[in-house]
Every structure is written in structure tokens, then in C-alpha cells.
């Protein structure tokens, strides 16, 4: 018969960590999506001498390992004397990291809208911004959704790295329990199941939206 020394109290502690994971994911994705939309739009519609430098800048958070970014920014914050909690630092660093990927998704989505469709909109007398709002964004959204869902799930797993700057999220909370009760296999299985339980609804929501849209398009 299976038995464990992991108590309900321990599980509560792990679930609290899961709450932190969700919170970091939420803020990082919110920031990343807003910035990513902006950067992606700029990269898709502006002349090369604006688009190209922005692309290079956004390559930095995509190329440097997230762990290094977290530690550097967290130390840098102390050096320049900004009073931000590790939680805020985590959300900002992950947010910028997500925005770099998101801008790529948005740019691809916008460029996937055929020029001829945009011309049709403009020839009806719609302005540049009306064309973007009424035609380009709704069409691009359908292209972007699957990649955006993938990005959200990726960021949720990447939040595990914030334990390195002292945040007790799901993985760190599990490690603490493991250290005490010495049952790594069981505790990590529980943690893995919780990650899955958080990701699954997002993945299903994406699949559902995609299917609904495809019935029309």
C-alpha cells in the first residue's frame, strides 16, 4: 500500500506556489502581449530603418538565456537603487522576454494578410487605421492564436527559473517539501500534475477558438 509523509498542509504550500506561478505567468504574458503587439506592428508596417534596429534589440532577450537575464536585472536593480521586489523583476524580465517572441508572432500574422485584401479595403474608402482595425487585426489574430497559446504555455514553464532570485513558486515550493520529506519522485509528480492542470485549460481554449474560427474561414 502506498503511503507518503506529504501532508495536506504541504500540498497547500505547493498549491500556494502554483498560485505564484500563475500570477507571474499572467503578468508576464499581459506585458509581453501588449508590448509584443506594439513591437510587432511597428516591425510589420514601418520602414526598414525603424524595423531593422528594433528587430536587433528584440533579438537580445530571445538570445540570452532567461536565467542570466533574471540574475543580471535583479542585481542591476540593486545597483541603480530601484526598489522593486523580485516578483516585479520576474514579471518584467519574463514580460520583455515574451514580448520579443510575441512581436515575431504578431509581425508574421500581419504580414500573412494578403496585400490584395488590404487593397480591397482601402478601395472601399477605408483609412489606413480602419483597414488595420477592421481587416488586418481580425485576420492576423487567427494566424497568431496557435503560436500565442504556445508562447503562453512556454512562459508558464519558464517561470520556474524565477526561483533563482528567491521567489517561491510551484517548483521551488516542491523542492522545499522534497528536502524535508525526502520523496522527490512523488512530490515532483504532484508538481508536474499541477503544471499540467494549469496548462491544459489554456491549450483547450486555444484549440476550441481555433476550431470555431476555422468553421468560418
Amino acid at each position, binding site marked *: 500500500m502506498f503511503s507518503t509523509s506529504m501532508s495536506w498542509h504541504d500540498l497547500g504550500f505547493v498549491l500556494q506556489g502554483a498560485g505564484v506561478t500563475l500570477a507571474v505567468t499572467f503578468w508576464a504574458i499581459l506585458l509581453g502581449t501588449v508590448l509584443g503587439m506594439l513591437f510587432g506592428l511597428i516591425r510589420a508596417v514601418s520602414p526598414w530603418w525603424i524595423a531593422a534596429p528594433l528587430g536587433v534589440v528584440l533579438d537580445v532577450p530571445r538570445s540570452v538565456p532567461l536565467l542570466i537575464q533574471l540574475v543580471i536585472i535583479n542585481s542591476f536593480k540593486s545597483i541603480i537603487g530601484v526598489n522593486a521586489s523580485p516578483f516585479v523583476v520576474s514579471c518584467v524580465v519574463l514580460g520583455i522576454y515574451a514580448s520579443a517572441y510575441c512581436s515575431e508572432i504578431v509581425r508574421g500574422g500581419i504580414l500573412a494578410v494578403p496585400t*490584395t485584401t488590404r487593397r480591397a479595403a482601402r478601395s472601399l474608402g477605408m483609412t489606413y487605421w*480602419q483597414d488595420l482595425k477592421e481587416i488586418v487585426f*481580425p485576420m492576423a489574430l487567427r494566424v497568431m492564436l496557435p503560436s500565442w497559446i504556445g508562447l503562453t504555455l512556454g512562459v508558464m514553464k519558464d517561470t520556474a527559473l524565477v526561483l533563482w532570485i528567491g521567489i517561491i513558486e510551484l517548483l521551488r515550493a516542491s523542492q522545499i517539501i522534497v528536502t524535508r520529506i525526502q520523496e522527490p519522485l512523488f512530490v515532483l509528480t504532484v508538481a508536474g500534475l499541477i503544471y499540467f492542470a494549469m496548462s491544459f485549460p489554456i491549450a483547450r481554449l486555444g484549440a476550441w477558438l481555433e476550431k470555431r474560427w476555422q468553421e468560418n474561414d
Partner: protein
Amino acid sequence: MIEIQDIHKSFGSLEVLKGVSLNVEKGEVVSVIGGSGSGKSTMLMCINGLEKIQRGRILVDGTDVHARNTDLNKLRRKIGIVFQQWNAFPHLTVLENVMLAPRKVLGRSRQDAEAVAVQRLTDVGLAEKLKVYPSKLSGGQQQRMAIARALAMEPDYMLFDEVTSALDPQLVGEVLDTLRMLSSKGMTMIVVTHEIAFAREVSDRVAFFHQGRIHEIGSPEHVIGNPQQPETIAFLKSVL
């Protein structure tokens, strides 16, 4: 009226229009025929300012299309254009496709825009398809929807850019019928087409484009029935 005065248009080093002049009166139907790459479609794009010109000018009801201070968005309201690719807005239903521009551009209320859209869609025979998404329509139906979408703006002029070229042969007829209906209602139209028989039937005048110029122009009986230029004769022989 539309006055095209000696327009020149180049894409890079390739000169597509080499001095084209053409006047289209109110109520007139002018068909434009000619080989691929002869500049027919480019001329249409220049008329509503989707393409810039390097020389010459185009006046629509006296307004210079390419003048710096011309409000192109406003000008385009009275020039409807339908393309070879019908360019449906895939995320909107047929009815919403037709309602969008009247609502956003003309500021019509939902009820007004819907009433006009239903009328136009009925005119082109799509009254049964209002709530359907464009992907569920055949090519011919999508093209008729595109015509209704342009007509819902109540334009004074309609430009047609090879609107049957991308259609299966059995669907061409229904779209041509729609154009016939428009011409019988007195719509001013410029029709770029490869349908020579149709051009002969509906046009007041036919213009034959060749290498960026209007090579021959006149009544259909003249240009199609009894062409004078060797290039026109050769072209007609190749397509008929």
C-alpha cells in the same frame, strides 16, 4: 466623368504605362482588352489612387486623383473597384462584408447599412446567403458579393479588373450577368476583361491596350468587328 491625361507609370525601370489618355463619360461603358502585362489593370489602380503615376494626371469629376491635397479616402467612395481575386473579408459574414464600409466610411447606422446591403445582395442574387461566411461560397458567388460590397457604397463609377479571370468557366456567366444588369441601369463602368464577346455586347467603346498604350479605340463594331491595326487583329485572333 473620368479624364485620363497622358499618364505614365513605371515599376522600377519597367515602364508599364507609356502615355495613356482616355475620357469616360457618365453612363458610358468602356471595355479594355489586350494581352497580359499591357498595362490594363495598372491603369485601373491609378484611377482610384492605389498606384501612383510618374507623369500626366487623372481627373475624376474634376478632382485630380494624384494631387497632394486630394482626400483619396473620400474620392474612393465614389469609385467602386472589383478585382480578379474577390478578396472577401473571411472573418465577416456575407452581410457584414457588404455592411462594413458603409458603416465605417459613410457612418451609416446599422439598420440603414443593413437595408442597403440586403438590397445590393438581392440584386446580385445572394439574398439566401446573408449569414453565411465567404468560405462557404463558390468563386462566382464570392465575386458577386464583392460587386455588391462595392455597390453598397453607392459609387458613381465602377472599375472591373478581370473579374471573371479567376473563375471556373461555368461560373463566368453569373458574374457577367451581374455586369449586364449594372450597365442596363446606366452605371459608368470601365471593364478590363478577356471576355471579348461580352465586351462587344455591353460596351459603348472598346480600348485595345498594347505595350503600355491604347493602340486602338472605338465602338465595339469597329475595334472588335473590324480592327485596323495589325496588333489588334493579331490579339483578337489569339483569343477568339
